[in-house]
């Protein structure tokens, strides 16, 4: 029999064995397939920067008909959750300290009188500034409500307001889902495949089967491919599953070519599996492998622009992030799924991803030694 054919047989045997082991452990398998779906669904519902239900305290120091009317406007709509009305400033600070309220609208003494006499009463918005962004946005909403409520008491001719007419390119309703889900799907799947790939070689080492493998003529390439291919297939299945769920549940429009998206997924997987391989080869125990995997995954995720656009980060971080393969993948998948871009625009990303994949896989392969100790 020829050597290549033997190598192929060995590879097939490796792949079959890995799949059998996966199947023998249905809990793990189920976890790997279901977790990304759960993650994507949860994140899809949870990840929004929209500010709603701000716990609000209305402070009415005037207790007039007008002040009551103005404050009553805050009770409409989902923006503010009114925690109560106070008639003095005594307990204001403690309400913030305990976190019961995040916004207080303070109407001063003589509010009605001053308003009617055009004497410009001083209204105060007090906000919990720990989350600065949320505070600013909530202040904006509150100002809008106040402005509308006091308009009838303004000068003859009414109040002249500047309103904001937002228009979002590509995503008119500003669903953060559109932004997150392509990345989320990948991330969920990548977490599992990298972690599992990282642990799988070390596990053989810990259990003593590694040496047994190494005394066979199994070529190193077949060993590594045999380890990685099942995870790659599993990852693709999990990804398809999660993406399908996401599309169905969140009605995400897929503007570009799904095939192109899968192509990018595939070449990105080269890098993530290569990363797993390097970590596995560099570790002595599964614990080590796991921690390495966890660390790098979190870093890779944070630098990828998944949570926040990386362009706004400090220069040095932005530079580091260029060594993050996920950055290119996230960018490409958003372009494809949301903007409908094609390979004509995205070929640089494809080339970079392929480069990362080749480098990481080569590094991992070189690190795997066909010897023990």
């Amino acid at each position: 029999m020829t050597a290549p054919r033997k190598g192929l047989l060995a590879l097939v045997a490796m792949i079959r064995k890995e799949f059998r082991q996966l199947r023998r452990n249905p809990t793990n398998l189920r976890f790997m397939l279901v977790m990304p779906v759960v993650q994507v669904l949860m994140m899809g519902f949870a990840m929004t920067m929209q500010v709603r239900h701000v716990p609000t305290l209305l402070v009415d120091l005037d207790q007039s008909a007008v002040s009551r009317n103005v404050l009553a406007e805050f009770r409409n709509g989902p923006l503010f959750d009114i925690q109560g009305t106070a008639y003095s400033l005594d307990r204001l600070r403690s309400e913030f300290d305990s976190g019961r309220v995040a916004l207080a609208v303070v109407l001063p003494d003589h509010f009605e009188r001053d308003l009617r006499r055009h004497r410009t009463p001083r209204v105060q918005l007090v906000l919990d500034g720990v989350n600065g962004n949320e505070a600013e946005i909530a202040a904006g909403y509150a100002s809008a409500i106040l402005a509308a409520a006091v308009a009838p008491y303004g000068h003859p001719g009414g109040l002249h307001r500047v309103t904001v007419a937002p228009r979002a390119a590509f995503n008119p309703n500003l669903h953060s889902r559109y932004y997150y889900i392509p990345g989320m799907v990948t991330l969920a799947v990548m977490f599992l495949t990298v972690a599992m790939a990282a642990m799988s070689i070390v596990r053989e080492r810990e259990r003593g089967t590694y040496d047994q493998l190494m005394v066979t003529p199994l070529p190193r390439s077949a060993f590594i491919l045999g380890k990685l291919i099942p995870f790659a297939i599993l990852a693709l299945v999990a990804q398809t599953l999660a993406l399908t769920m996401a599309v169905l549940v969140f009605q995400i429009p897929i503007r570009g070519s799904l095939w192109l998206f899968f192509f990018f997924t595939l070449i990105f997987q080269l890098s993530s599996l290569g990363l797993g391989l390097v970590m596995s080869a560099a570790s002595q125990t599964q614990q080590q492998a796991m921690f390495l995997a966890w660390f790098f995954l979190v870093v890779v995720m944070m630098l990828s622009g998944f949570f926040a656009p990386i362009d706004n980060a400090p220069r040095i971080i932005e530079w580091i992030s260029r060594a993050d393969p996920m950055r290119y993948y996230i960018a490409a998948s958003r372009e494809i799924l949301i903007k409908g871009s094609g390979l004509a625009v995205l070929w640089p990303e494809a080339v970079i991803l392929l480069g990362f994949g080749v480098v990481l896989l080569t590094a991992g392969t070189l690190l795997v030694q066909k010897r023990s100790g």
Partner: protein
Amino acid sequence: MLEPETERPVVVRTRALTRKFGAFTAVDALDLDVHEGEIFGFLGANGAGKTTTIKILCGLLLPTSGTGTVAGFDVLTRSEDIKRSIGYMSQRFSLYDDLSVRENLEFYAGLYGIGSRRLARRLDELVPRLQLAEHLDKLTASIPMGWKQRVALAAATVHDPAIVFLDEPTGGVDPVSRRAFWGLIDELARSGKTVFVTTHYMDEAEYCHRISVMNAGRIIALGSPADLKAQAGLETIQELFLALVRRDERPGAGPQGGTSR
């Protein structure tokens, strides 16, 4: 047997084979010749260096110095060729617990490039010989220790290697199963295979054609069990072993028994 073992070709040969771990010498200038068709017993206290020697011969470890050939291939440069000619059963049980017996065998056959037709023929031979039929489709984790060792032997010989290294194959196995297992080893030797086996059971040493006794990385005795007992004037291998090790550990005592003639 038609001819004395010593006249048959040498299939495992080491000269001044040495392996150090840092400052510690685990295998110290080992000289060995093992002949085709021989059952070669490797005795020695814990930590004597038996497993280390076997790992070097199997290509899992590189020697620090010295030379060694297995099946005519140099352990330093041709370990991948060696791997095609040998079977190895490690001291630790190392099959996949979460695969069935058949799946384990299929897997190892695949690693050696054995296609399904050849494997079927091979299983027809191995399964009755090792009496594995009733356990073939059980999960490896669920079968008794004695059978696990047989499965490991089957996996190590599924590709019909010329040389088999067995590192404590009968550890933790009951006397009946051990006896049966040695019957299998004997059959292997009869069919022309060379068996290189370590053990801590002195009764098993009696089944070997030749034994070597190792202590602290060196060989302190080598020969057929009968010759060695006669030389020392002792009744059993057990007594022989104890006497040899005791003598070797006296300060100033050099290696005894020498290398093969």
